[in-house]
């Protein structure tokens, strides 16, 4: 079976960071890039599925500049069979709908049995790309999956979702389908040094939206939003910083609680 895993190289912030002068983004000097945490789980789910069915192919796809290749190499090292990177300067700052539109062209040509996305990305936290992609692909989909059982004979997946109050919803879905995977569904493997070295030998295609048949007009038409500004929250009023030894701090807290209780 063929499984496509769209992944994202996210920005991880240092403890302290600065924004660009125009407020459009975080200063890249304060950012480290890493594979999105959720995508480690979706990749692992795909790899396990490939291993349990005994054959098949796992393809990782990302949208990003050449720095994003590190994330793809990491996925290849863990066991993905090949990778695709899509980039064009026009994609800088693209919103989830535009990203999904471009991805849909790349995923669509793969004729995948399953598309497995992470629930969300840790930096933008939209939780939208996967479901939007299902929309463009006109695929059935289930979001936020905590458990996955695939039955090759019937080409169906039985999935579990966690709902409020600890309720578990069980669904059965026929493939091809798109699933978004929650963290904790499995234990992502790591790559040993040999696999890391060998990953560089695996196919990694670099392409553009144009080559995929998505022109800039189509991307613009798909986009639903544009970031106006990124800023620090305004400092709240009324916070009292308590200095002193632990005993002094504790005494002051008791005092404050008493004041409020009596008020």
């Amino acid at each position, binding site marked *: 079976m063929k499984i496509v895993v769209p992944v994202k190289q996210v920005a991880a912030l240092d403890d302290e960071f600065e924004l660009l002068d125009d407020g459009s983004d975080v200063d890249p000097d304060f950012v480290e890039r890493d594979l999105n945490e959720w995508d480690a789980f979706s990749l692992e789910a795909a790899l396990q599925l490939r291993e349990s069915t005994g054959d098949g192919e796992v393809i990782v796809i990302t949208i990003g500049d050449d720095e994003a290749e590190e994330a793809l190499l990491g996925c290849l090292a863990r066991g993905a069979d090949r990778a695709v990177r899509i980039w064009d300067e026009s994609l800088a700052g693209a919103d989830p709908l535009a990203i999904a539109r471009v991805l849909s062209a790349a995923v669509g040509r793969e004729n995948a049995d399953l598309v497995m996305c992470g629930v969300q990305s840790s930096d933008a936290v939209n939780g939208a790309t996967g479901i939007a992609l299902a929309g463009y692909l006109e695929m059935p989909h289930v979001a936020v999956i905590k458990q996955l059982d695939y039955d090759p004979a019937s080409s169906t997946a039985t999935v579990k979702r966690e709902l409020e109050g600890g309720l578990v919803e069980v669904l059965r879905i026929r493939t091809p389908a798109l699933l978004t995977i929650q963290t904790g569904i499995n234990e992502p493997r790591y790559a*040993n*040094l*040999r696999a*890391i070295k060998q990953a560089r030998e695996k196919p990694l295609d670099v392409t553009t939206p144009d080559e995929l048949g998505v022109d800039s007009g189509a991307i613009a038409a798909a986009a639903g939003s544009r970031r106006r500004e990124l800023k620090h929250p305004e400092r709240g009023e009324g916070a009292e910083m308590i200095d002193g030894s632990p005993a002094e701090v504790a005494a002051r807290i008791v005092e404050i609680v008493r004041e409020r209780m009596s008020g």
Partner: protein
Amino acid sequence: MARDPKYDVLFEPIQLGPKTLKNRFYQVPHCIGAGSEKPGMQAYHRGMKAEGGWGACCTEYCSIHPESDDTSRVSARIWDEGDVRNLAAMCDRLHEFGALAGIELWYGGPHAPCMESRATPRGPSQIASDFELNIFPRYMDQDDIDTVQQMYVDAAVRAREAGFDIIYVYGAHAYLPFQFLSPFYNRRTDKYGGSFENRARFWRESLYKVREAVGDDCAIASRFAVDHLLGPISIQVGEDGARFVEYCDDLVDLWDFTVGDIAEWGQNAGPSRFFEENHEKPYTGQLKAGNHTNKAVVGVGRITNPDTMVAIINSGQFDIIGAARPSISDPFLPQKIEEGRFDDIRECIGCNQCISRWEIGGPPMVCTQNATAGEEYRRGWHPEKFHPAANRDKGVLVVGAGPAGMECAMVLGKREMSAVHLVEGAREMGGSVNWISQMGHSDGKENLFRGSARGLGEWKRIVNYRQIQLDKLSNAEVHLGSRLSAEDVFNYGAEIVVVATGCHFATDGLNAATHEPIEGADATLDWQLTPDEVVGETKRVGKRVLILENEAYFMGVSVAQKLAGEGHEVTFVTQAAEIANYMDYTLEAPMLHRDLDRLGVDIHTYTMLEKIEPGVCHAYDVWNPAHKTQFEVDTVVLCTARISDDELYRELKADPDRLQQEGIEGLYIIGDAAAPRMIVDSIFDGHRLAREIDSPHPEMPLPFIRERRLWGDSTNDDYRAQLLNTVDVG
């Protein structure tokens, strides 16, 4: 990153008589095992702190005359021109970095046994030392007093010649000036005994004479135990303590305050097991706060937290942050605060391993957190600089993330190996530290002499520091919950493999006393436990517990504290004379004895088990095996031998063809996996291998510079040129 203005106060200069201290970081006198006879170690250890931003660094206690000879413990000495020359190396090194050099002039009285000089120490009264074994001083008449005071003056003049900026008349830890001051030692009836002024006279006169001799050129300091902690029979801070500070305030430029004495100096160098940060504040904090002095005050208390430091100065507790142990653990503490690199601070864990080696008498100082401490000169190791390894193109696999593995991986990462993978079978980093750091508690009741049985929680700093550092290294990866087989290692793709898989406790009672298992010992049974099982609470423990202790360090007694604190009836059996001999060296023993006594632990020394049966242990006296005892107990804890977990290493090593075929060029074993040992030594082992990973035979330590006198060699001018590995230190 620029300094947070909050910490500006720590970087304000302060005047000490004729000298200016550039900031508020001050390495108080502390021993390192160098003295005047290892000038390279002395200069480069203190110099490393000066490089790291400390405003002043002092020698250890420095003997003024052969009559004050502490052999085999290592003091500095300034007896002659040769000592001047050797200690000048330290002064020069400190001055290169703009730091002041301090010297702690010391006359020990009966606390100095004079085993090398064979001299007779003098003292205020003929009372045997409460620290040494049966050492009596010669009673000092007026001539003796004049003679000893002249020794201080002569030593001070030599110290000035060596280049020292701060000269102490050292009276803390119950050495000679304090012996005059305290009625516990001083039973005189002349003008040097009796009233406060009479008892203070010797110290005041000594300070006056030293000040007259060198006070225009050097800052005069005195280290004073403001409270002897013996109650009304000696100096108490609210009485003669404050009175003495006021009485001699005109003669000093700097007060260095401590508490206690040398016989129980763990009250001053408090181990974290019993004392928290800034624990001396209730005593040493009273003098400046109570307006008893107008001079600069430095004090200690294993202060590692920059916010505590700021609070100490802003609250008027001290003017200057003193440190011994925190400066050993992190010589670059001031610079890291200056640069806002708080998570790079390597905090002292308060294990007192540094102190233990002085107490043993002879070995160089060591540090659990900082494996480079004491190695700056002889091995050329720098705590913050790591030159890229010549073989940095290699990938390294370190198996096991305990103390040795973490340290090794961290240093290899800093040496820019192309990739370092630290792979650990457990779910968290730290190995044995994770459960050991949960020990040392009893019932949490704070009714010990001072402090409380707060436990070894601060030892977890070993893990925290390394975890943070590894996290910052882009070439290092840590993988947890992954237990590698030999096949996994063969296939890993690493050119260098380091095995750091730790050790386990023997389950059959194998021990150092008999070199045999004990009949009936079997910790696979549900009523016999190894210490880690006690901490992990994996087995039910009965009402009556017998602990067989065979390690002579913290393991058995920590189990006793925990179980007795939980209400079990604990019988403690050891073949040794002491329940935890090494804890005498770490200064943890006195408080430990108080806790075990309070908890009612039944202690049997010189006792060994010959047979363990359900419900009863059969014991014998080691000096008379026919003398038998039986203990009726429900549970037995076997704190006996530890055994290396070296199967992985052995399996890999047994297949050289496969190693070669898989491209594994180097296979090494470190830490407890090589041989069970103390944490300080495991960390050193991991560090040493990583520092020398590009040497011809990394498994064999490179030779280090030995500071010794060479027969027939009349000069030794190239002491500095001898520094090997000058890449990091130089």
